[in-house]
């Protein structure tokens, strides 16, 4: 037990001392807050290679109906409010029923609940694998969309739902 403790102390020292020699060191001495608490900052540097789009850039696409929004959150979250006209597609659900509709759109914008965009990235990667060319993930996700007054289910983007969604 004592030696296990010593090993942990030595390991911690190794990790903290060695951190500076890694390509992207952890910011020792700084504060690291959850990605979702950063004002839209997380998601901006995609580690997944999926392109991003800001809420400001996405809003006009919603209003002009030139993009289909894909909601990657849970069914409950989707039903309690989503981007106007958005289709619901959480990770792990079949994309086939939606493909025709998504292919018809010039652009597809995926968003999820948390600003780290992990779920949206997964959905976006699957859509890309299906051959959709312009798939982007919404920076700041749903909280940012709400905070910046993006049109919600009953918002100003009613034209998008005119096709009988």
């Amino acid at each position, binding site marked *: 037990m004592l*030696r296990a403790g010593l090993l942990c102390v030595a390991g911690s020292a190794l*990790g903290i001392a*060695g951190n500076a020699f890694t390509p992207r060191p*952890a910011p020792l001495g700084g504060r690291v807050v959850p990605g979702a608490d950063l004002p839209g900052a997380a998601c901006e540097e995609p580690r997944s290679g999926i392109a991003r789009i800001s809420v400001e850039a996405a809003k006009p696409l919603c209003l002009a109906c030139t993009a289909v929004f894909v909601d990657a959150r849970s069914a409950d979250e989707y039903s309690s409010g989503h981007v106007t006209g958005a289709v619901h597609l959480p990770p792990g659900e079949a994309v086939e029923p939606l493909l025709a509709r998504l292919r018809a759109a010039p652009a597809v914008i995926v968003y*999820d609940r*948390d600003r*780290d965009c992990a779920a949206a990235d997964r959905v976006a990667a699957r859509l890309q694998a299906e051959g959709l060319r312009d798939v982007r993930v919404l920076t700041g996700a749903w909280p940012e969309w709400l905070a910046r007054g993006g049109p919600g289910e009953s918002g100003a983007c009613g034209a998008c739902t005119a096709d009988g969604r």
Partner: protein
Amino acid sequence: MTRWLLVATRVALGALFLWAALSKLPDMEGFAQDVANYRILPALLVPYVAAAVIGIELLAALALISGVMARPAALAVAGLLTAFIAFLAQALSRGLDLRCGCFGSDELASWWTVVRDAAMLAGALVVARDSGQRQRVLEDERSRT
């Protein structure tokens, strides 16, 4: 437990932790972010804990693979896994949607991750118990001669 099975478990556990540590080394900043996303540790402590975890993983992995100080390493790993399971369980039960930060990929945290960690924990406990027994047997033999 037969000796070869014990050695295989020990080395496999060590290899998994070596992989876990090496896959996180290229992006420690990203791992610190993953740790922060669990919303347990204070923001100031996060980068230190992230760096320390990787150091312990690395050292414990080398010990498990080489067999030098294997028992303390197995105990340390068991402690780490217990903490991982606690972090994961609270995050999942609070409905946080996050990357698990397990092997430096974008893998999402899920109950499957908890099951996997629990299986590794069982392995670590077996190694800790049986390596200890073997050590005691060896020490007994040595004291008798």
